[in-house]
């Protein structure tokens, strides 16, 4: 899977590092928990920059290339930060046949960025995602944890406006 790697400087806090260390302590006895640790780390930092990958590798006692290998294999792991509001367009089949591509096109136009990008001010990011299982509401997008269903392209500006304030 092709991943975009962020060039933004890493600015993790000691609190975040302490949280991650606690997760590692709980899990380091079992190397099969590597993915679990990475999922927790992404929850703490929002993404997995190389600095965090190194901390995980050291803590779990595995080579950093293994952590990198796992992080680039799975869609869930992000190597670049997401915006404060992350717009995610479901590209499952049910959504696609009902016009999800039009929603992406419209979002790209309204937000002025293309998929997998973040606006320069860090406020909005846009991505496509795999089926979230809300096929009855197709086509759907999510903004962070908020789900919007049965959409048409013309609904997009109104939704974006809600988060622009």
């Amino acid at each position, binding site marked *: 899977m092709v991943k975009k790697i962020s060039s933004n400087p890493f600015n993790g806090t000691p609190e975040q590092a302490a949280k991650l260390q606690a997760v590692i302590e709980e899990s380091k006895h079992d190397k099969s928990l590597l993915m*679990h640790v990475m999922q927790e780390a992404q929850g703490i930092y929002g993404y997995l920059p190389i600095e965090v990958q190194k901390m995980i590798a050291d803590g779990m006692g595995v080579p950093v290339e293994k952590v990198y290998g796992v992080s680039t294999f799975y869609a*869930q792991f992000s190597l670049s930060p997401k915006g404060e509001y992350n717009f995610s367009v479901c590209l499952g089949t049910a959504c696609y046949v009902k016009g999800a591509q039009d929603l992406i096109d419209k979002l790209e136009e309204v937000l002025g960025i293309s998929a997998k990008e973040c606006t320069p001010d860090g406020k909005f990011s846009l991505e496509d995602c795999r089926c979230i299982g809300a096929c*009855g509401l197709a086509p759907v997008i999510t903004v962070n944890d908020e789900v919007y269903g049965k959409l048409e392209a013309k609904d997009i500006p109104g939704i974006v406006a809600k988060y622009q304030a």
Partner: protein
Amino acid sequence: MYRSHVLVCGGTGCTSSNSGAIIEALEKEIADKGLDKEIKVIKTGCFGLCALGPIMIVYPEGCFYSEVKVEDVPEIVEEHLLKGRIVTRLLYDETVVSEKEIKSLNETNFYKKQKRIALRNCGVIDPENIEEYIAYDGYQALAKCLTEMTPEDVIKVVKDSGLRGRGGGGFPTGMKWEFTSKNAADQKYVVCNADEGDPGAFMDRSVLEGDPHCIIEAMTICGYATGATEGYVYVRAEYPIAVERLQIAIDQAREHGLLGKNIFGSGFDFDLFIRLGAGAFVCGEETALMTSIEGNRGEPRPRPPYPAVKGLFAKPTTENNVETFANIPQIILHGADFFKSMGTERSAGTKVFALGGKIKNTGLVEIPMGTTLREIIEDIGGGVPNGKKFKAAQTGGPSGGCIPASLMDTEIDYDNLTAIGCMMGSGGLIVMDEDNCMVDIAKFFLDFTVDESCGKCAPCRIGTKRLRELLEKVTDGKATMETLDEIEKLAHYIKENSLCGLGQTAPNPVLATLKFFKDEYIAHVVDKKCPAGVCKALLNYSIVADKCKGCTLCARKCPVGAISGSVKEVHTIDTTKCIKCGVCESNCKFGAIIKG
């Protein structure tokens, strides 16, 4: 005792349309009216009719309120729950016979032909309460196995039932169990595949959300039958509600002594753990899934050795998918003959389908094997909306094929679908109408497999990419008839030479559309036209002179200034500048802009 139970759907579909807020409003309103000792609100799993969510059912009357809004709650509480007057206006219209009479849900078209085995408790019980599951015969099958049956007996019943893997492959479940049971080892495992990767299928999620205990029970039974003492459920991280409820269920089962040491005093130990997937379609393949549980990149391994010999952590392992497990307790309780009495000769039982796409009643349906596609789409699904014509139904997701209108009377079972070049798959059933371009759909699925190919073997990694490029030539209008031959040849090569199921089935959507919709491919290649009007490179917008009033709206809206014309004169589109965004068409009030 409560005089009334209000069931509100807490599945992902309804939660996404705000059923959580409805539950809160209900509980508050009921408490305000002092009815909280008389009326109980229960958050259940999925009722199936997702198109009409959020859904609420009030018992004992069995009133089915659909598309409920938070604003409707005070009225329902005041009128129905307090005064006993049903709010007919908010009922699912199919259940309303007259002002005075309502029909039971099981008599509506959507539910009439269904037979719920795997989904029997979904939308019926509170999935976060083990006692409700037990009250519906929960854990009785496990008790029967541990106290009355030998592992061999259990395997025999499962074998005799004719149950086949519901994840798509259709391998006989009993045989899988028997293979593992015959391999001696110091440790064996049971794995439940809940990595529902097929975009458009959500039955496994609904079972986990609506009836998590039945999976725990079935996995424990499997552990007893095969000699395993540990189990793993591999769930997609994208299913947070399912993960949460499954964890609650596991904790409750442990507290009740239904997981852990010496279950039912039989001396049998079994425990269960959850592992979260991270979004990789290939992890639905059994060996890749096990590699992923071990904390690695989820790449498949060559078989043999099969998981029954060397599976998770190199120990004998039985792997089944959620829906397969969901059938097990019923088979044990009611016997193999009960299960065989449903379905067709070689495909016993029922199958859950996720109906989606261009169909009125989107949602989850469980039907006996052997039901025809026509019954599913027209009777249960309510047909294609907006007066459009049915074109094809896609089954099996990125690994499957499509069924054209001419084969709508095919009886759905494993073998019939394979015979027409399709596959059962996990049960996603996406309906497409005349506005969907079949070449574009084939390309969509290939985009998916190119993205999801793990890269381990060359036929899949390189082959799918080249195949997509060939399809792009078609949708860009640059292909010749030879390109179509090349597509077919490469597709067969990928099928025959890939390492795992992902690559072996990746060309199926292409081959199936090429078989049933060749004329559409030819239209792209020879006439350079996309009949459905989807492929942008082959589209041209033009203005019908008779209808254009010269209002200038399109010229102002066009983002690239491709439209010219003065006020009250017929406008024209410069096709060399046009980017085919369709803004002009959607804004024209006179229908003067056409594409084709």
